[in-house]
């Protein structure tokens, strides 16, 4: 390497998180590593229960009370978030590290006006109310809300779902964070709105120069928005790479099946949509070997014994014994 590598904004390093349950420890995340480079958009895909939400809760240090950090580090601009004291962590949240939630219908305070909530986010600034309102209005304008001055007086129930999510995005980006974590922000919206919001998010990201960690199970959205993709399965990262690599030549069998199952990618008329047979493994009592093996069409005997590590493969990383051998 000739030039020094630019420090990624966020670096998750072999993170393991488990939940204490009545049946035993549920290993929700195991050795998860990923990077969000400065100024880029990284998408995390995976089916429900793959650990996406646990991962972001760990990043903002708002894990459920029964969660336990087993090992690993989450470095934000070089600093380990997991060893920060609560006050310094709180200082980062909303300022350098912002978040947009999945359901815009419940993520705004129902009894406070939009203007008041947007001013509230800026509480760290020593500015007049008028200055804060002006900034709120500029942000609302940027996320494509017409007549922002009037909207400041509105209450959340007076806005549609799409408008509320725009407000939530405006609030999250208000303090120009280094990293925006978006937890399925378009899942609760309809398809046309989804596209609009994705484009706006991309434009804002370019303007502010922040990085985005975008969680979704919608492959089309990931392909449209992201630079890199992290594919998660049952609490592990199975494949990471650029959007182009992952979508054009997926190498992990799970990624391939996931893409094959995307209704957007199906060209032939069919009565039966493709599915991945079987279910997620029990995370309390994990089988040895590869976690995906029970559902994998290509699994061999070796897959039941040896646990595949995430290995470099032409710039991307894959955790599969077969691809490492066959390629």
């Amino acid at each position, binding site marked *: 390497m000739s030039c020094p590598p630019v420090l990624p904004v966020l670096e998750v390093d072999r993170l393991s998180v488990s939940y204490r349950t009545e049946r035993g420890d549920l290993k929700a995340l195991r050795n998860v590593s990923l990077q969000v480079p400065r100024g880029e958009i990284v998408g995390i895909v995976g089916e429900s229960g793959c650990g996406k939400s646990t991962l972001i809760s760990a990043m*903002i240090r*708002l894990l459920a009370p029964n969660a336990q950090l087993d090992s690993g580090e989450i470095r934000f601009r070089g600093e380990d978030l997991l060893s920060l004291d609560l006050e310094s962590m*709180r*200082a*980062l*949240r*909303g*300022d350098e590290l*912002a*978040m947009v*939630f999945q*359901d815009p219908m*419940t*993520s*705004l*305070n*129902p*009894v*406070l006006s939009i203007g008041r909530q947007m001013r*509230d*986010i800026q*509480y760290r600034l020593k500015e007049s109310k008028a200055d804060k309102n002006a900034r709120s209005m500029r942000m609302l304008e940027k996320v494509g809300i017409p007549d922002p001055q*009037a909207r400041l007086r509105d209450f959340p129930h*007076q806005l549609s779902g799409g408008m509320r999510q725009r407000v*939530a995005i405006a*609030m*999250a980006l208000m303090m120009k964070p280094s990293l925006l974590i978006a937890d399925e922000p378009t899942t609760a919206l309809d398809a046309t709105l989804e596209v609009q919001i994705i484009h706006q998010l991309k434009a804002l990201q370019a303007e502010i120069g922040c990085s985005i960690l975008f969680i979704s199970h919608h492959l089309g959205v990931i392909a449209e928005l992201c630079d890199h993709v992290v594919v998660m399965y049952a609490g592990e990262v199975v494949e990471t790479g650029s959007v182009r690599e992952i979508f054009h030549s997926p190498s992990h069998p799970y990624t391939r099946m996931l893409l094959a199952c995307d209704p957007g990618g199906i060209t032939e008329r069919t009565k039966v949509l493709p599915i991945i047979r079987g279910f997620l493994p029990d995370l309390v009592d994990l089988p040895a070997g590869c976690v995906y093996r029970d559902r994998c069409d290509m699994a061999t005997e070796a897959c039941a014994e040896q646990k595949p590590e995430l290995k470099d493969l032409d710039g991307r990383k894959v955790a599969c014994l077969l691809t490492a051998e066959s390629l």
Partner: protein
Amino acid sequence: MSRAKLLRPDGLLISTWRKLRRDPLGMFGLIIVLLIGVLTVFAPWLAPYDPNEVDVYSRLLPPSGDHWLGTDQLGRDIYSRLLWGGRVAMKVSLLAISVSMAIGIALGMLAGYGPRWLDRILVVTFDTIRSFPTIMFALAIVALVGSSLNTVIVIIIIASIPIYGRVVRTQTLALRDRDFILAERAMGASTVRILFRHVMPNIAAPLFILASMDVPVVVGMEAGLSFLGLGVKPPTPSWGSILNDGYSYIRNSPWPIIAGGIPLILVTLGFTFFGESLRDIFDPKLRKKG
């Protein structure tokens, strides 16, 4: 209503007033509440006589043009005494309710948002106080420190804190795991900020209603304690002591006790109707069908 009106809803106060105006019982309540407010605030100017002026030649008179509600056993004008007694009742209820509500909010939010062990301790404390008959409690306190208006206020405050504390705790518990509270935490809001900026406005409406319905309870408590001689000291007029005086002379004249009972009935009806109407306005889900 014009289209602009539909798009630009009015503030909370105006819209509440608009809905209240359509509710006859609520309006009736509001009028009584305002009437009592005006009469007690301006009692020194409205009372035709000094409430403690004794006139033994005109004792136990029935209502007349000179004495609108008659006179008591010492010839004091009952109407004037009722006005001054209303000041005592309103002072006690305003002070007692605002202080017990403030303490109840603080403790209730601590219980609802704080750690589990603190919640347990506070709930047990609330229940202990609530399970104590107020009169017994009042007798014990008066026996210890003697009777006075301040003692009455303190007794009522202690007895009312659990009412507010429990409501605030339940509401806070219901709110603490809501998404917008999580969103606030994710955006770096401190616990104090979350409680006062985000939880408080959400529980303000039920608390306001509770406070309004609590006024007759507190007025009744003060009157009861004064009736038993545990409250304000004579000759200071209080609705309870007026009733007690009337009770002693009920064989001579029914007027003192009739006149003394009217304000208690009015306060109870007025604040209850007003409170119920507000509850319906703020929480349409609770409204009875029909």
